[in-house]
């Protein structure tokens, strides 16, 4: 296992695509965060304080900022990086060379899982650093009125990590199935947007098809998006935030237990499908 991790680190850390992707992620994300919370940790509109990212609420807020949060960005960047790295093993034919050199197919699969976990950890560490920077270091300390971290915050962190693993596994499956980086990325975005987002919206337009749209809530992308919603864990704070911003009260179609059960099931299924595909196909 240690050797597999070392091999994946050599492949990853010495590849420009990895650093460019992370650089783009931060380049895109940091100015937004700095503009929103750079002055004292509070987002103000017309002189009125809408929300403060000060800890402990920062743990959840960093995962739910109307699409401009770490979770949303990671859902974009992490699968692209995984598709590039997994797909290129087949483009460069290094998957077959790794097996020829002595890895079993099981070890090659485990190496890819190690890579997914490593990438999830990279994005998780970025999340931790961003929360600490904008929610603690740059924040006006008078904003911090509770303990820095609560039980629900650990739940949110766990949920975020599960989401990262889930998206990484979906990208791995597309990478192994397509054996091509570009095709894998294309398939991922087609599936995540057209199949899971647009298709149910179209179904909802017609009364007779509307019940079928509900089944799409159970598909993997939607499940992993649902699992990370901080309002599931800190309902009081997020309900107050929505009320302050004049939004509709928060409701969830699926219970948190159902979402977690489905997420766990999908992690097993996605990993299993990738393994079987790798095992059964000729390299």
């Amino acid at each position, binding site marked *: 296992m240690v*050797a597999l991790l*070392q*091999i994946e680190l*050599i*492949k990853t850390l*010495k*590849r*420009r695509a990895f650093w460019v992707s992370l650089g783009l992620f931060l380049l895109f994300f940091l100015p937004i965060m700095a503009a929103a919370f750079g002055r004292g940790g509070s987002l103000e509109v017309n002189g009125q304080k809408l929300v403060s990212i000060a800890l402990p609420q920062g743990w959840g807020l960093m995962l739910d900022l109307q699409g401009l949060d770490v979770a949303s960005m990671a859902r974009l960047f992490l699968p692209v990086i995984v598709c590039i790295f997994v797909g290129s093993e087949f483009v*460069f*034919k*290094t998957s*077959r*060379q*790794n*097996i*020829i*050199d*002595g*890895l*079993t*197919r099981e070890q090659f699969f485990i190496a890819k899982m190690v890579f997914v976990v490593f990438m999830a950890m990279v994005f998780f560490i970025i999340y931790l650093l961003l929360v600490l920077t904008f929610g603690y270091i740059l924040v006006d300390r008078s904003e911090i009125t509770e303990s820095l971290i609560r039980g629900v915050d650990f739940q949110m962190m766990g949920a975020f990590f599960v989401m990262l693993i889930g998206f990484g596994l979906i990208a791995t499956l597309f990478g192994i199935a397509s054996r091509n980086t570009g095709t894998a990325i294309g398939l991922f975005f087609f599936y995540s947007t057209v199949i899971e987002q647009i298709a149910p919206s179209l179904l909802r337009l017609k009364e007779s098809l509307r019940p079928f749209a509900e089944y799409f809530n159970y598909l993997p992308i939607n499940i992993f998006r649902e699992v990370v919603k901080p309002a599931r864990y800190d309902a009081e704070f997020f309900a107050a935030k929505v009320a302050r911003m004049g939004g509709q009260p928060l409701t969830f179609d699926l219970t948190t237990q159902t979402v977690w059960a489905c997420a766990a099931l999908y992690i097993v299924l996605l990993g299993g499908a990738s393994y079987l595909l790798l095992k*059964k*196909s*000729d*390299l």
Partner: protein
Amino acid sequence: MSVIEVNNLSKIYRSPLARKEKCAVDNISFSVEQGQIFGFLGPNGSGKTTTIGMLLDIINRTSGEIRLFGDTNLNAARKRIGATLETPNFYPYLSGYDNLRIVAKIKGIGEARVQEILGIVKLADRQKDAFKTYSLGMKQRLALASAMLSDPDIIILDEPANGLDPEGIREIREIIKGLGKQGKTVFLSSHLLDEVEQTCTHVAVIKNGKLVKQGSVQELTSRNIARLEADDTDFLRTVIRGYSGALSAEVRDGAVYVALSEGNLSELNRHLASQGVYVSHLSEARQSLEEVFIELTS
């Protein structure tokens, strides 16, 4: 001792959508003994790479059995094999050194050996450069270094001289001969039949997925052919056709070439003399491996 044993090996590619099947390898059996330099020959698309792929477990076989070092557990045996398949497959953005580091970690070898092998294949001064900047010859040498890294018992090389200049081909030939002298088993697939004839001790020829011939290079190229010259070539051929040991006789370039069922030239000569024919030239004619190959595969 057989280090590679292949029994009734087949590979059928199925296309469920088109409902088509293609038999790439058809029930072949062969064995390679320890210390042999074994040439695996065949025209393009004959099933060579598919067979090697099944030996290395990167292509799933449809049926048949493979034994490496007498063991059917290929995973364990592959640690004792060094191989390259088709073009050199490395991470293009990594240096030659880092690519070999990955192979060393897979095989559980120390990094000192990486330096040593880079010196052997004369890539030490370019080891820090990215693989994608290497010439084809350098890429082939790195592939050879990767195959030899763990000092394996069997080295499998698929077209190792592809794209090399004459100097590069000579270097590869010397390395392979050196491996043979060390008692290593080399399994070599190549189109360069002259090279194979100079390098290999044994060959197998495959055509349309079927094994058509296997044996030592000596056996295959000495195929009991006699070359005879006489004043009356047509009469000579007529007499030879009456000889029970002659399989065929043909006139070519003013001489008669006879395929004999047994390679006894003196008996043929005695028969000719008994018929009152005295030849001015009688010798054993060797075929080149290329001639044998074309005869077997055309």
